[in-house]
């Protein structure tokens, strides 16, 4: 038993600590508003600080870009009414007139110039927008509503790149990230005005009644950050929020039966794939059936890679593990996106054929391999990896699964520590070049190619078609080149596409939302059904 004095000392401490809590209750005033549960926290209110989808999703409420994108990544006029190429290197953008910033000032070319200057140069940025401005050689102001952008090389993706740069008013070019986080510098042209941001909790918005485009159906909106899946669902069921994004797969069936709710589903641009070490002669996690490291890397043989692709029952994964929130695929992009190849079907599930191919390739007894996967990055990632491993094991490729937090996974994957990995990819530009150049082009530091090619797949034909496409300004010609590159890579099984995720939004009956391929959740696109 502690002695009396020690006790008194502790009691004194407690007294001081508790006396700090004195109560003055105050009920919060609640206006009629739309509240949405988002699944990922945003890290900053500075539109140029962190190039990350959750951040960009919120910025779309407050800011606009020169070129806008619809739900299927088709480019449409934004702050620029139109654009054209003057010559191979020069683009001319005609700006929209009569647009006002939230503070009432007019939008002009100077604001665009300031935004393009600031975007790549934010201090301490963990992921900057520089990748989207790097091709720009210089920006010329022709008149207050016309600018000309010169690129360093012929560059067809300039409008796509500019669709990611948020336009701030020129007077805030020098504002710091703190100024934006505090709300002082937030001044966009978007459909919503900024009201309040509380980190990891909520963003409050008010309708911008001076907006040039269609105005939101709601006077106010609150974007609540509810990262935990069960919590987000509970908040929807309890009426704390009126809509949520990313309904967890475990709850889709239950929510679909609920008469109070409506679900909106649509195929997403994100696809989940398997990457194999197809470059090294000996791969760290490949061994023969008895566990002895193999002298030859079987993954270099296209027959083995094809057998692996055939051994996976994509439909079973989509139905059972993903509970229907996935569409099996055999290529890089969902239908409707620039570069999708209509002819490529998801490979049929054919375990017997896979076994035959393996025997043909000289592995009648199969081999052993480890599949590495993140366990906190993609929907059900760890479970999908296990299911894949089970299916491969059944055709003789004894597969172990090692799942780890993405913090560790991506570092190790980028260091080429794995033989076989599961990952996902969403083409940020919404067209084929993003996936081709990052995942399948030969790794090349100078050219910035193959950054996420963690299998170091290399195919001269794919490289040549991709690079040619990247400098072809004519749209139909470019699409053909990318389609040809995709076909070449898929025929050679440069990676094994599994499925496209399906985005699922849940909302109260009476609300409507058209599912977006880019997985974005925008308050101004929620409709009120009468």
């Amino acid at each position, binding site marked *: 038993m502690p002695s009396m004095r*020690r006790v008194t000392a*502790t009691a004194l401490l407690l007294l001081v600590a508790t006396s700090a809590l004195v109560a003055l209750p105050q009920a*919060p005033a609640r206006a009629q508003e739309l509240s949405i549960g988002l699944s990922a926290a945003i890290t900053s209110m500075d539109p140029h600080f962190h190039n990350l989808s959750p951040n960009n999703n919120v910025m779309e409420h407050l800011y606009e870009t020169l070129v806008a994108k619809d739900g299927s990544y088709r480019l449409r006029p934004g702050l620029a009414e139109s654009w054209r190429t003057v010559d191979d290197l020069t683009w001319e953008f005609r700006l929209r007139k009569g647009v006002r910033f939230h503070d009432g000032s007019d939008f002009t070319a100077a604001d665009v110039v300031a935004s393009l200057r600031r975007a790549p140069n934010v201090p301490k940025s*963990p992921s900057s927008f520089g990748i989207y401005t790097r091709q720009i050689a210089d920006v010329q102001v022709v008149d207050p509503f016309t600018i000309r952008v010169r690129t360093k090389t012929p560059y067809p993706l300039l409008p796509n790149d500019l669709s990611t740069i948020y336009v701030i008013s020129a007077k805030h070019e020098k504002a710091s990230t703190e100024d934006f986080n505090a709300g002082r510098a937030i001044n966009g042209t978007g459909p919503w005005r900024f009201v309040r941001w509380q980190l990891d909790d909520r963003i409050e918005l008010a309708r911008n009644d001076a907006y040039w485009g269609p105005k939101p159906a709601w006077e106010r909106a609150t974007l609540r950050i509810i990262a935990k899946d069960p*919590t987000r669902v509970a*908040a929807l069921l309890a009426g704390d929020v009126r809509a949520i994004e990313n309904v967890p797969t475990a709850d889709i069936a239950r929510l679909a039966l609920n008469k109070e709710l409506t679900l909106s589903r649509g195929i997403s641009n994100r696809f989940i794939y398997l990457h194999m070490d197809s470059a090294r002669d000996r791969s760290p996690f490949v061994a023969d059936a008895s566990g002895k490291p193999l002298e030859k890397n079987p993954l270099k043989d296209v027959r083995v890679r094809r057998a692996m692709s055939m051994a996976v029952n994509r439909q079973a994964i989509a139905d059972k593990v993903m509970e229907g929130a996935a569409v099996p695929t055999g290529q890089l992009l969902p239908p409707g996106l620039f570069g999708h190849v209509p002819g490529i079907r998801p490979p049929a599930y054919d375990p017997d054929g896979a076994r035959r191919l393996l025997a043909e390739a000289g592995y009648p007894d199969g081999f052993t391999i480890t599949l590495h996967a993140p366990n906190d990055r993609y929907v059900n990632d760890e479970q999908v990896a296990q299911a894949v491993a089970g299916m491969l094991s059944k055709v003789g490729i004894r597969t172990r699964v090692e799942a780890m937090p993405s913090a560790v996974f991506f570092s190790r994957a980028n260091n080429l520590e794995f033989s076989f990995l599961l990952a996902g990819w969403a083409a940020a530009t919404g067209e084929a070049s993003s996936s081709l150049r990052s995942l399948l082009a030969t790794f090349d530091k100078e050219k910035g*190619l193959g950054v996420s090619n963690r299998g170091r797949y290399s195919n001269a034909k794919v490289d040549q078609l991709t690079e040619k496409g990247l400098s072809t300004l004519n749209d139909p010609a470019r699409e053909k080149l990318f389609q040809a590159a995709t076909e070449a890579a898929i025929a050679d099984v440069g990676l094994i596409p599994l499925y496209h995720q399906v985005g699922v939004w849940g909302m109260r009956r009476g609300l409507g939302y058209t599912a977006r391929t880019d997985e974005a959740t925008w308050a101004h696109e929620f409709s009120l059904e009468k």
Partner: protein
Amino acid sequence: MLRRLMQSTGVLFVMSLLVFFGVYAIGNPVDILVNPNADQQDIARAIAELGLDQPLYLQYWHFLTSALSGDLGRSFSTGIPALELIFQRMPATLELAAASMAIAIVLGIPLGLYAGLRPDSKIAKGIMAGSILGFSLPTFWVGLMLIMVFSVWLGWLPPTGRGDTVELLGVQVSFLTLDGWSHLLLPATNLALFNLALLIRLTRAGTREVMVQDYIRFARAKGLSDSRIIGVHVLKNIMIPIVTIVGLEFGSVIAFAVVTESIFAWPGMGKLLIDSINQLDRPVIVAYVLLIVLMFVLINLVVDVLYSLLDPRIRLADAGGAR
């Protein structure tokens, strides 16, 4: 006194060294912070922006020098000072910890008192069996069961998250709204369980000890009512150790809140730590650990100092060693 202070500073320094080099040795945070579409050039730029291109000892030197002026670095992912992030989350954790302590006290003392006064009754035996369970059951599993029973089956209470908050002295608190309480009840109960069991045992032991003392017998002989004897004489005497334990356990409750917070998605400091570990947000991890170490060191130091002030015969060095 001076020696004690120096020791505490030494502890802080050693911990900062261990945690910093430990945390900075794992993974590469840029790999998850950077946009997947970034190319090699851009990744290199991000590494430089975060200062990760410098040798580790230099990074530590920067950290140490700015730490001395109260700056524990900025979060990689948000660019916001790590301490600011932690302090923003602190009210939620303190609220949860305080509520759980309140539950443990309000239930634990009467139950323990009963078990101490009637040690042979069936109810008392039930209470003691329950307290063994309270010690044994893993917090996280009890949390899951609470959610299953009260949220999924009965639908009485919301399973996760924090309720509506109102501003109180510049701090967001939720215990003043009905919605806030409905969210607070389950996690607070979950967190209270261990201390509830502890308090029941302490109160029971204390009561049994006190009841056989002479002054209780005198009080009885004087003809005082049972309620007065228990309310005044017994309680007054057993409160002392209980208050101590409550004080010392408060730190552990805050630490254990890590588990409860992540089950109930309670937006407190503990969840921040788990999130930061998952994102490799190194400055936040380091700042969190150092803050907790500082808190424990301070609690111990202050208690010991007060202790020695109240009783000059006890030298500080002994007070530290006697624990």
